């Protein structure tokens, strides 16, 4: 089943055309990595997919249900009530975590299931503790985010997103704000999710990681998909921009 479908998406900020007709389709259980140079529009694409921002043109569907359609050459969004419903289908892990600093680790995780999904606390608590143990953070449930390392905070953020049982999980450079020695622990958690067939779309600069866990890799450049395919196809591509991009990365 196709979980996410974006068609011919265009987005401009004033005169700056950032996305110039991008299509993206993600199927159940798929892990898709998006790579590309800074400013190519990767974050913007995720912000449109997660409804944090609105597209100028193009269409968007979740689970076969149309959320954004084209009318008279412009994107038209469903009503807010419908959008709220659709939001239950996906989660997003931010580069800088965005945990709630005034709440403990456990509260960060259980609040949305209780207050948004209106589930019972007795039911949510064991699930939250189970998630924390999968993240290797069982002993940290009463800590505040500021008392944790970046890698621990990001793992809490992943647990917070998973607690709502999303169908698709988006990541926007989940390890870019971390010291190199903390990157591994977060990547390990994402790798475990991939093994459990969690549907994920990951924007990342970790090329080796993308190559290993992705079913499909998308190389974005200047607002378009320049190369798309299996990791072998994309990393072995003779596309000149792709080669330059990889060359620059290995030069660093």
């Amino acid at each position, binding site marked *: 089943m196709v979980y996410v479908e974006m068609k011919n998406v265009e987005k401009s900020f004033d005169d700056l055309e950032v996305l110039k007709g991008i299509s993206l389709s993600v199927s159940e259980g798929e892990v898709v990595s998006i790579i590309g140079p800074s400013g190519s529009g990767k974050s913007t694409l995720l912000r449109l997919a*997660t*409804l*944090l921002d609105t597209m100028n043109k193009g269409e968007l569907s979740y689970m076969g249900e149309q959320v954004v359609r084209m009318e008279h050459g412009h994107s038209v969004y469903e009503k807010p009530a419908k959008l*709220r419903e659709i*939001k*239950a289908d*996906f*989660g*997003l892990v*931010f580069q*800088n975590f*965005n*945990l*709630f*600093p*005034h709440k403990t680790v456990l509260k960060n995780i259980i*609040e*949305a299931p209780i*207050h*948004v*999904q209106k589930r019972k606390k007795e039911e949510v608590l064991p699930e939250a503790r189970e998630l924390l143990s999968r993240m290797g953070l069982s002993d940290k449930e009463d800590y*505040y*985010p*500021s008392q944790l390392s970046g890698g621990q905070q990001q793992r809490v953020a992943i647990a*917070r*997103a998973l607690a*709502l049982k999303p169908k698709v999980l988006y990541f926007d450079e989940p390890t870019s704000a971390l010291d190199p020695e903390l990157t591994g622990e977060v990547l390990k958690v994402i790798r475990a999710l991939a093994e459990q067939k969690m549907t994920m779309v990951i924007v990342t600069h970790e090329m080796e990681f993308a190559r290993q866990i992705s079913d499909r890799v998308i190389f974005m450049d200047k607002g378009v998909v320049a190369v798309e395919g299996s990791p072998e196809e994309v990393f072995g591509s003779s596309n000149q921009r792709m080669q330059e991009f990889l060359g620059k990365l290995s030069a660093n």
Partner: protein
Amino acid sequence: MNFQVMMEQLAGGMLASMGIFFLTLIFSLPLGLLVAFGRMSKNRVVSGIIGFLISVLRGTPLMLQLLVVYFFPYYLFGWSIAGWRFPAIIVGFSVNYAAYFAEIYRSGIEAIDKGQHEAAYILGYTKTQTFFRIILPQVIKIILPAITNEIITLVKDTSLAFSLSYMEMFSIAKQIAARETTFLPFLVSAVFYYVFNLIVAFVMRRMEKRLAYY
């Protein structure tokens, strides 16, 4: 007039001053939040009008505002203002302090990282839930020192009610001092304001400590 009678009269004034103080806080703290919303409204007309009103309230003397609130029903509509004195004082103080609090709330709300709103949005929180569960608790921690400053000023400002001849601490002290030609009532009222403010500062420090958990 013996000492005891004088102290009893001054005690009545203290209660009156404290009444102004607490009622003003009760009304102006929530009102300030509403005004802050108006000030931050996306509607340019609304935010412009509210911004102008805030600047007038902060830019003119409170004493003048009290006189305007007290006398306007009479001058504008010819209504009797009997019994309006105390309500007028509370309205005048509350509106004036709401203007100051509004600017404090606004600076606090704007200081919150937009990632907090975005995280809450993605998790499905409504706007109201986001504000009361995520934003406001963080705002309160940020603005508490500024709020403390205003509250300390309010303790002293309650004496401005004398301009409407309301019998609060300062008016009574002045009256007794004139009648009995003694300096003592002024001393007593100075001690009152000072001790009151010590208590306020103590309570606010306790609150700041309690919010220092993260």
